[in-house]
C-alpha cells in the first residue's frame, strides 16, 4: 500500500514539474547494449555463486567410487538416491545410526517453543517501550542495545549454571529458552522501532476507547504487525535452525538439534569420509530455512520496505 502511495506521489510531482519527466522517457528506451552487458555480468555472477551448489547437489547423487576419481564437475555416471536415504535414515551420530531425522525432529521441537516465546515476549516489550510511558525506558533501551553485542561465549557458563538450577539443562527446553533469551535484545529493538512509527492519533483514539494495555495490544497492535512479524519470523527461523553452538552446549544427551548430527557426520578427523553422504546431509539440513524463504520471501521484502519507507 505504501509503495503505491509513493509511486502515486512521484507521478504527481512528475506531472507538476517538467524537470522530472526523463524518469518516464527512460523506461521506453528498450534493450540497450548497456542492459545486455549488465544482464550478462549478473548472469555470470549468478552462475559463479551456483557452482558450489551445483557441486554439492551433483555429488550427493554420485557413488563413492566415482567421487574418488576426483572430477567434481562431472555428472553422476549412475544417479543414486542412496546418499539421501543414508543421510536421512541411517547416518550415524555416534553409535546411534538412525539418520538425521532424529535431529530434524529435535530441531522442530526446539524451533516452535522458541519462536513463540521470543516473538511474543519481544512484541509486548517492544510495544510497551515504544508507546507507553515506561519509567527508565531510555536507560532500558540502551541496556538492550548493549546486550545485543554481548557474545554468547562470554555468558555460556553462567547460562549453564542457570539452566542447571532450573533443571532444564540437557533438554530441548533449555535450547529453546536460551535461543529465546539471546534473541530478546535485537527482537525487542526491532519491534520497538516498528511500533514507534504508529501514528499517535491511533494510539490516542485507542486510549480513549479502552485504555487497557492488553486490549490495545491484541486488538490494534497485533493486527498491525503483519509485516514486521514476517521479518522477525524469518530472522528467527534461520538463526535457530542454523544454530550449532547453543544446541551443542545445552542439548545435553537428548536435545541435540540437526546441526549437531550433521557436524557429527561431517567432522571426521581420522575416519573415512563419504562425500555423497555429507553433501546429502548438508542439503537436508539447509532445506527447511530455504523452504521458508521461498514461501514467505516476498512478504519478507514487503516487511522490510514497509519499515524503510516512512509515512
Amino acid at each position: 500500500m505504501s509503495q503505491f502511495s509513493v509511486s502515486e506521489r512521484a507521478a504527481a510531482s512528475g506531472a507538476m514539474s517538467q524537470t522530472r519527466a526523463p524518469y518516464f522517457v527512460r523506461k521506453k528506451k528498450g534493450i540497450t547494449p548497456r542492459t545486455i552487458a549488465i544482464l550478462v555480468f549478473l548472469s555470470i555472477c549468478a552462475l559463479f555463486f551456483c557452482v558450489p551448489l551445483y557441486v554439492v547437489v551433483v555429488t550427493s547423487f554420485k557413488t563413492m567410487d566415482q567421487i574418488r576419481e576426483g572430477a567434481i564437475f562431472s555428472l553422476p555416471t549412475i544417479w543414486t538416491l542412496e546418499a539421501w536415504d543414508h543421510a536421512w535414515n541411517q547416518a550415524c551420530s555416534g553409535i546411534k545410526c538412525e539418520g538425521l531425522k532424529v535431529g530434524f525432529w529435535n530441531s522442530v521441537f526446539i524451533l516452535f517453543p522458541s519462536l513463540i516465546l521470543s516473538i511474543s515476549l519481544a512484541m509486548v516489550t517492544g510495544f510497551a517501550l515504544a508507546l507507553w510511558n515506561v519509567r527508565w525506558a531510555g536507560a532500558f533501551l540502551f541496556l538492550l542495545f548493549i546486550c545485543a553485542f554481548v557474545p554468547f561465549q562470554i555468558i555460556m557458563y553462567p547460562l549453564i549454571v542457570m539452566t542447571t538450577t532450573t533443571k532444564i539443562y540437557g533438554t530441548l527446553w533449555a535450547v529453546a529458552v536460551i535461543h529465546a533469551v539471546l534473541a530478546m535484545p535485537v527482537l525487542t529493538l526491532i519491534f520497538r522501532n516498528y511500533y514507534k512509527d504508529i501514528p499517535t492519533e491511533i494510539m490516542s483514539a485507542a486510549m480513549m476507547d479502552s485504555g487497557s494495555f492488553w486490549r490495545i495490544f491484541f486488538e490494534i497492535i497485533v493486527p498491525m504487525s503483519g509485516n514486521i512479524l514476517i521479518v522477525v519470523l524469518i530472522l528467527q527461523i534461520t538463526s535457530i535452525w542454523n544454530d550449532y553452538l547453543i544446541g551443542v552446549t545445552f542439548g545435553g544427551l537428548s536435545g541435540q538439534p540437526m546441526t549437531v548430527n550433521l557436524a557429527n557426520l561431517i567432522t571426521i578427523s581420522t575416519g573415512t569420509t563419504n562425500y555423497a553422504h555429507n553433501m546429502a546431509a548438508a542439503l537436508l539440513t539447509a532445506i527447511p530455512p530455504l523452504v521458508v524463504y521461498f514461501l514467505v520471501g516476498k512478504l519478507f521484502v514487503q516487511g522490510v520496505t514497509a519499515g524503510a519507507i516512512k509515512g
Partner: protein
Amino acid sequence: MLKSILGGVTAALMLSSAASATDLIIYHNWSSGPEVAALNVLKAGLEAKGHTWTDIAIPHDTGSNVNLMNLVTGGTPPNVFLESSPGVYRDLIGLGLGRPLTEFFTEQGILEHYPTSVVSSITVDGEIMKIPTAIHIDGMAYYNMDVAKAAGVDPASWNSLDAMFADFQKIRDAGYIPIAIGGQQWQVGYLTHALAAATGGPEFYNGLYGAEPDPSVIDSADMRTLLETLRRFQQEADEGSVNREWNVTTNMVITGKALMQIHGDWMKGEWTAAGKVAGTDFGCVQIPGAKAVPVTVDSWGILGGQPADVDAAELDFAAVVADPQIQADFSAAKGSTPTRLDAPAEVLDACSTEVLHILEDADHQVPNPHSTVDADWQNSIWDVVFNFWSDPSMSVDDAIAQIQENYDIILG
C-alpha cells in the same frame, strides 16, 4: 575421601559378579562407519558384563574439550569419555572428578603388555588416568603397489630419506606424483612431529614435545635438520596440495595418481573403504630411516567421585577395553592397531602387524604431542611450521627465532 573411594572400589570389584546392571553414559566423537563398528565391539563387551550403554556423540578434538566440560558443569557428566588431552584430566582432578587408574592397571597386570609410548600417553602427572583403546602411527608411508611396480621403485627398500628422495625423479619420469601431501595446518603439524621423531630421535623429540619441553633443543642441529627436511617435503608437494584434505590426498594414492603419502595411519580406513587389501594393493612402511615413530593413542577416561556400583561398572568398561581379544576385534573394525603387543595376531592385517612389530622396540617410539604437551605450546609450533611451510622465503633461522620467542611467552 580418596581412601574411602578406593575401599569402596575394591569391595565393589570383589562383588563385581554380583554387581547390579549400571547404565553408563559414553561420550565420544566417532561417527564414521568403521568407528561405529568398532564402538559396537566395545558395546557388546560392556553388555556381556550386564551393563547398558547410553551414547552421546559430539564432534570435538579441540585439545581442551569444551563440550565435555560443559556437560560436567551442567551437572550431567558422562561416565566414560574419549579424551586424550592431559589438560582435561587435570581440570577434572581439580573438580574432584578425576579417577586414577594406576592401581587398577597394575593389579590386572596389563601395563607390561602395552608399548612404552602407550604407557607415557596415558600417564598424567605421574598417575595413569586413561584407558588406551587404539593406536595410530602419525607418520607412516602408505604406497600404491601398482604404481611402485610401474615406476620401478620399492619403498620398502629405502633405508633413509635421502634414498627416498633419490628415487623421486624416476617416479616423476614414469608419470606419477612421488608424494601426495595435504597442505593443511594440522597435516603439516603432524608431518613435523613425525619427522622430528624420524630425523631427531626420541631425545630431541621429547625435548620439543615432551610434558616439559627443553628449550635447548629449539636452536640445535637436530632442529635445523628437521626444518630443512620439512622444506624438502614442501618443495615436493604437488600443485593442488594447498589446503587439501587428507582423505582427498589419500585418494590420489589409491587411484594411482601418486605413489605414496606420509600421514597418520588412519588413512588405512580410506584404503579399506575403497576395497583395497594391505600387503597386496598397498604397502605401509615407517618413514625411511626413522629413528623413532610418534604414536597416537586414542584413550578413554572415566569419571571419579561416583557411587561404588557406578565406579565398578566404569572399571568393567576399562577391563573390556583392555581385553586382548576385544582389542584385536576393535582394531580390525576401526582400521587401527591394538594397544597390546599380545593381541591375537590372526585378525590383524599386514599394516597392523608391521606397526606392532615396530612398537616391540621400547626405544623406537614416542607419544603424540596431544597426549602429553601443553596445548598452547603445541599450537604455537603448528603456527610457526605452517608459516614456514607456506612461505618458501622464510629461513630456518627465522622459524627457530619464532619458536624461541613463543617458548619464552608460553613456557618461559
